[in-house]
Structure formats: C-alpha cells, structure tokens
C-alpha cells in the first residue's frame, strides 16, 4: 500500500502539539481563575468593609438614622416573606407548565409557541417585569405595594428559570421508568405524580433555589413598583407593606454619611451569605439526591 502519511514528520511535530495543548490548558485554567478571583476580591472588599457592623443587633434592629443602630430586621424578614410568596407560586406554576410541556403537550404549533414564548420571557429585562407588576398587580388589581404584589411580580420574573430547570429534570427521568409504570396499568397522572416527579425533585429544587436567589437579589423591578424603604414593622399578612434586602442596601448606599457605606457592606454581606447558603443547598441536593439511573 502506497504511503501518503509521513510518520516521521508526524513524530517530529508531536512535541510542539503537546506543548500547545499544555499552554492552552494553562490559559483556560487562568480564565477559570479569573472568575474566582473577582469573586474573591468582591468578598474581601465587602467583608473588610462590613464585618464591623455585623452583630446580633444588626439583625434585631430596624433601619436607623444612626449607622451604629441601623439593622436589617425589616429587610431580612421582608426578604423571607417575599420568598414565602415567590417559592410556592413560581414552583406550582413552573412545575405545572413543565409537566404539561414534557408529559402532556402534543407536538403542535401551539406547544412550540408556548415554548418559544417561555424562552423569550427568560430574556425579558427585569425592569420590564417591574413595569408589568406596577400596571397589573399594584394598580389594576389594587394590591398596592404589598408582599403579594411584589411576590407575584418576582414569580413571573423567575418563572422561566423554574420551567426550564423542571423541564430538564423531568426530561432526564429515564423513559424506562415511565414505561415500567405504564406497564403496571398506571394512568398518566399516577405515573407523573408517583414516578416522574419524585425522580425529578432534585433537579426541580435546584432550579427552584437558583430562581429564588435571583428573585431576592433583584432590585430594579421593586424600584419600579415603588416599595418603601423605611419600614419599622414586620408584615403580618401578605397584604402588608414591606421592604427587602436589596432595597435596604440601595437606600444605605445613597446616604450621605460614609458610615452608611459600611452598613451597606454589612447588608451586602448578609445577602451574600444568604445566597451562598441557598446555592450550597442547591449543590448539596444536586450532588446527593441526584439519582443515578
């Protein structure tokens, strides 16, 4: 057989190819480090600036004109209230939609329209959701600046995230499990409820937590809705006024006293810890409950 490939040349070039591979590996690694580095710098700055204000009082006090008395009680509890509305609303709607699309929907124009629509919603700027919330929930439905109004707005905002994550989770439940259930004479809904959902729960929860952490970090839509800054009480029902962490932080950063910048850093720190906590839970769920089929 006549040879077209010169093995000697190949051998000669081999070492330079391997070196190039190593160089790029280093480059890729540095890029990965860059993100971690930025995160590190951000944390360092915030911690050094804000740690001095973190104590028990910080969590027990309402906002104050005096930096040393300022606390995040209202904002922190308000954020929890917001989650209490956003989590069930967005999960029910999101998972319901995902189940419909993955298990029930026929492959037709309408279904693909819904899908297209969802991925478009995922890209709509949060501030536009703010305008929607202001017009529909705050004004038209007269929910005012309540936990409910803000919660519904945020739910719609994060809905696409949950839908997509849930679809992914539902889709990754092997077909074999569904077949096994159907082969036992189970109906579709029984199969979905008893087999598919339990198996998809880790993925759904992970998506849900990530969506929730987006919801509690958003400021712009709440500014547009116009929720108040100073609230010296805790909401008792979802119809009450409230404030949330990012709003409180935003307010502190705009105060003239430089000490408030540090208070803001303390608030940011609390917020970040909360976020990391939520992300860790998501990662934990992902790593430990994800079933291997």
């Amino acid at each position, binding site marked *: 057989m006549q040879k077209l490939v010169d093995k000697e040349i190949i051998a000669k070039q081999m070492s330079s190819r391997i070196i190039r591979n190593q160089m790029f590996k280093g480059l890729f690694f540095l890029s990965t480090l860059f993100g971690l580095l930025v995160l590190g710098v951000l944390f360092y700055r915030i911690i050094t600036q804000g740690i001095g204000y973190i104590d028990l009082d*910080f969590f027990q006090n*309402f906002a*104050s*004109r005096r930096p040393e008395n300022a606390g995040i009680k209202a904002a922190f509890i308000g954020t929890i209230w917001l989650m209490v509305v956003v989590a069930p609303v967005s999960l029910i709607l999101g998972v319901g939609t995902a189940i419909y699309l993955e298990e029930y929907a026929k492959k037709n124009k309408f279904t693909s329209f819904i899908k297209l629509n969802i991925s478009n919603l995922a890209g709509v700027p949060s501030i536009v959701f703010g305008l929607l919330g202001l017009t529909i929930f705050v004004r038209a439905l007269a929910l005012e600046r309540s936990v409910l109004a803000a919660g519904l707005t945020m739910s719609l905002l994060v809905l696409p995230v949950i839908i997509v994550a849930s679809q992914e989770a539902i889709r990754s439940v092997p077909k074999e499990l569904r077949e096994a259930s159907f082969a036992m004479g189970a109906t579709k809904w029984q199969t979905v409820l008893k087999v598919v959902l339990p198996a998809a729960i880790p993925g759904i929860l992970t998506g849900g937590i990530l969506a929730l952490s987006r919801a509690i970090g958003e400021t712009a839509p709440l500014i547009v809705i*116009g929720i108040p800054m100073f609230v010296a009480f805790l909401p008792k029902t979802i119809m009450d006024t409230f404030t949330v962490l990012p709003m409180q932080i935003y307010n502190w950063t*705009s105060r003239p*006293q*430089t000490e408030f910048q540090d208070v803001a850093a303390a608030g940011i720190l609390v917020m970040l810890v909360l976020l990391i906590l939520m992300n860790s839970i998501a990662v934990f769920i992902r790593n430990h409950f994800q079933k291997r089929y």
Partner: protein
Amino acid sequence: GSDTTKEESTSGTTGDTSAKLSGEVIIDGSSTVYPIMEAVSEEYGAVQPDVRVSVGFSGTGGGFKKFIAGETDLSNASRPVKDEEKAELDKNGIEYTELPLAFDGITVVVNPDNDFVDHLTVEELKALWVDNGKAKMWSDIRPEWPKEEIKFYSPGTDSGTYDYFNEVILEDAPIVSNATLSEDDNILVQGVSGDKNAIGFFGYAYYAENQDKLKDVSIDNGNGPVEPTHETIGNGDYAPLSRTVFTYVSNKAVAEKEQVADYTKFAIENAGKMAEEVGYISLPEEDYKKDLEKLAELTK
C-alpha cells in the same frame, strides 16, 4: 449598637402618648426629606410600637402623585407643592396642610483639586448650568480660568432639589445637556470627587459628610460671597440656594386616624432635632409652634 440614644430621645414626646395606638401611617415622597422622616419614624416606633409606619422614597413629585391618589397619609417634599399638583389635589377633593420641617442648603461643589473657583455669582451659576448647545469651558465663565471642558453633575431633573435649583437659578431654561443626572446623591459625590473639572450641586448633608472629597463654592447673591454653613443656611444668609423642606399631611387622615394625628404631632415636635442629626438645619422654634397650631386646628 447602643440603646441609650433611644431613651434620651423619647423624652421629647408629649403627654398624650399614654393611649396605645395602632394602625398604619403611610409616608412617601422626597428623598431629601427621607432621612428626617426615617429618623422621626424610628423614634416614634419606640413610643408607639404598634403603629406601622412606612416611608417611601419616590421623590417629591412621585410622592405627590400617590398623595393625589389618596394612597398616602403624608407626602414629603423638598419644594412647595406646584400649582398643577394643587389642581389635581382639589379635583380629587384632598385637603392638605403644609408643614415646614427644616432648612436645606443646596451646596454647589467642585473637585478639591480645583484651585481657581472659590465663589460664583448667581449669574455665573446660571451661565454655567443653562444649556447653550455647546460644550462649556471654564474660560467661558471667567477668561482667566483654564480652557478646559466642564463636567456637570446634577440631581435628577424630577427631584425637588432640581426643581428648586431650576426655580432660583435656571428659571426654566434647559439644563446643560451633557450633565450627569442621578437620583442618588452619592453617585454625584463620586462623580465630582473623581473629576478635576467637575461641578455639581446637591443637599448640604452630602457636602457636610464628604468635605474631604469636595470643595464647596461660596455663592454671591449680590451681597458678597457666602459659604454654605450651618449658620448661613439657618439664618437665610446663604441665598438663594437655601430652602425649606416640607411634609404635606392629609387633613382627612389627621381627622380620621388617631395614629396619623399623633405621628404628625410627634414629627413636628422632633423634626428640628432629627434634622440636625441627619445633616439638615432646624427651623426657628416658632415655626414648629405654628405647625403644631395648624395641626391642632385639624384635630379639633
């Protein structure tokens, strides 16, 4: 934090707090007035813990919009109510009372590295800030100043602060079109302190807290340059940029809601002290007395 401050400040309250009140007090409006009202509300919480006070941040006009709609009990304003707003209020049958709370001096500042500007006349201010369709050089204002482009930083055109500046300096002429406008005065502080050719203006408190990063400019209103200080703002020497900030209270709310009446009374009694604490200048005692009398009329 410490708790001692709370106890000492509650001493300023009056006798009828014996009744335990509850319900809501909804306040919105000027971001300038916000720190005063926040402080008042904070103190009030110690006296009447069951009254639920919320203070918003929507700006003077934004506050009036909600006030007109009857959504709020008190509306903070860093300028007097405008005629159009009055008309709307009348149309909706909302009667209100204007209560002056404190003085604020709009302070004109430049970068500390700027060694040539020490005072400006009102005319020069106008020449600086009114748009003439061109980029402006310092030398356009006074020929001996350097030929470098000026950078402008101003509160948002919808803010009470801007409105007031507009009223006394711009007189409705458009502001220079390349001005950086921000609702967040700290962003303006950052802007001026980071830019050698910057000039800006905002509430006195922001200057007072950032004196190391900014240089204030004395204003000559015909009687020689006056530097904005606690005294000159309080006694009116710092003209024309010293102004009064207000809150507007709904008469109906005062009459019908005991907690609103009580809160308003508390606010007037404590406004001066609180204003000083957050960087404003209190009004003369008699002004607060007048406020209290007006209020007493309403609750009769």
